[in-house]
């Protein structure tokens, strides 16, 4: 875990991604552009009903066919990229910042606070994550805000523990000891010296968690417990496809493609980043 000491993370230097990382980066860039420019890329209005032309296969005007209400599937999938990425990036970003703060506090703060935080974080991560998510959704009711909250709560413990472990090892490093002897205050040590050194591994873990978050969003939206229809989400489009599986299989097949490509893209990119920056970092299944 002391790897950040020998190779300080520098966000400005482009890491040398392997071929897998480059494939991932290209896929991720494609989906980011798709999400950003959805209104211009989508050939039709994703919410416009056209019941006369429902459940069509691919045609010239509807490249990926239409759903059970005659909405254009391709347009819904392009807008779905916006939903998926907006939720995934907001929630992992938020969880990363909170986890960073909690981890620094636990690692550098007083012993008793560390004990309390570790117990809370351990309890939170001892819940099977899906059960916890469903319990929170029952209490708050489904919706995009609940979904983001759930993902943030699930992700915080892992990030906070990573940062805490990094902070604990870094605290004993010579350069921190030297700073302290020279009279630097806790705030200065935390922000100027610890923060830049512990943030590297967090960035890698965050990027490796994005696909898991995209899967969770799609899964919960599939169960109708995430993004509410008619807002297009890959999950609820998959559900529409499932209900009309026997009449028009094109819908379910088409809806799975962007989901699979984006999770593969983010995973490849995360792996590439990890290999380039910190190969010893271990990642647990989630």
């Amino acid at each position, binding site marked *: 875990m002391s790897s950040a000491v020998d190779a300080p993370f520098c966000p400005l230097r482009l890491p040398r991604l392997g071929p897998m990382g480059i494939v991932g980066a290209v896929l991720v860039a494609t989906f980011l552009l798709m999400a950003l420019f959805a209104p211009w890329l989508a050939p039709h209005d994703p919410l416009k009903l056209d019941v006369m032309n429902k459940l069509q296969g691919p045609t010239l005007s509807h490249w990926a066919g239409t759903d059970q209400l005659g909405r254009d599937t391709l347009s819904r999938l392009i807008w779905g990229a916006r939903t998926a990425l907006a939720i995934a990036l907001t929630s992992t970003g938020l969880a990363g910042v909170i986890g960073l703060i909690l981890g620094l506090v636990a690692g550098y703060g007083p012993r008793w606070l560390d004990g309390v935080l570790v117990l809370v974080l351990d309890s939170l991560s001892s819940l099977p994550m899906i059960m916890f998510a469903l319990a*929170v959704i029952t209490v708050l009711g489904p919706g995009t805000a609940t979904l983001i909250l759930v993902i943030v709560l699930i992700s915080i413990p892992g990030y906070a523990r990573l940062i805490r472990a990094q902070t604990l090892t870094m605290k004993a490093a010579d350069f921190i000891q030297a700073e302290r002897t020279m009279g630097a205050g806790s705030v200065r040590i935390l922000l100027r010296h610890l923060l830049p050194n512990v943030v590297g591994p967090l960035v890698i873990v965050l990027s490796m968690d994005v696909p898991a978050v995209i899967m969770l969003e799609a899964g919960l939206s599939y169960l109708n417990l995430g993004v509410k229809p008619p807002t297009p989400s890959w999950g609820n489009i998959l559900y529409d496809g499932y209900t009309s599986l026997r009449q028009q299989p094109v819908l379910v097949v088409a809806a799975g493609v962007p989901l699979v490509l984006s999770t593969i893209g983010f995973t490849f990119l995360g792996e590439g980043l990890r290999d380039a920056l910190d190969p010893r970092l271990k990642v647990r299944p989630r």
Partner: protein
Amino acid sequence: MLTYAVKRIGLAVVILFTVMLAMYAMVFLVPGDPASLALGPRATPALKAELIARMGLDQPVHVQAWNFFANALQGNLGYDVWSKKPVLGQILEVFPNTLILGAAALGWALVLGVALGCLAVVWRGTLVDTMLGILSVSMIAIPSFVIALYSLLIFAVWLNWLPALGAGMPGDWGSQIRATILPAFAIGITWVGYLARLVRASMLEVMGANHIRTARAFGLGEVRIIIRYALRLAIIPTVAILAVGFGAILSSAVFVETVFSRPGIGTLITSAVAKRNYPVVMGTTLFMTAFYLFVVTAADLVIARLDPRVRDVFRG
């Protein structure tokens, strides 16, 4: 070892109590009372009053909390809002289905994953190794419920080889096995990827050990060395990850069970969430958390028994 065991079990108990407390607090944080939320806007006052009395919501908070804890410890997890059946009974009825599904998924994933991991080590550094690496990462990346939907479409709807719904007839082993194949395939595929990578990585570490060099010096073949001498050591981290992975398996089981309408913990809790059936959601979450803690603690104790170094650093 005894000190370690007491500390580890103690921690599990403390965590379980924290979780119970948090769950109970969560119900109180809801705007509005759980009874009217569960019954919806069209509930009559009489119906609401009856449910409030039945759930004990008319009693003071500390009495409610005490009852909740006392009942939970005695195995009473409350009653279904709609069917009035005991929650624990409903859980125990479907729990074996989920357990069988998880075991089947892990079983085939373990066999194939370990085999692929060994192959990658045999041909390390070659094209085969690279291809297996890409294959395992892709397997990890694909969401299991998409695999479930695609395999449902191909093998159940188009080819009509396997059933699309349910868990098979009770008592009919053939139909139960046939109904488990597709869901177990969908859940296991991620694990083939994980295990192949894990076995490869830990095996490469072991290959540098002295006893492997000795085996080479004796002139044993590479395949024999890998299977008889390296795999024994390399399998230990795999056992450790299997326990932690139970949470991940459960996660995919929730989605995959829904896709195949297979009775299980996943279908039980998701239908309860949709109907805001609090006692079922809370009871199932508590039950699965307790079970998960049991599995993880047991695995930690087994690993500590096998590897004395673990005992010395307790949650560092």
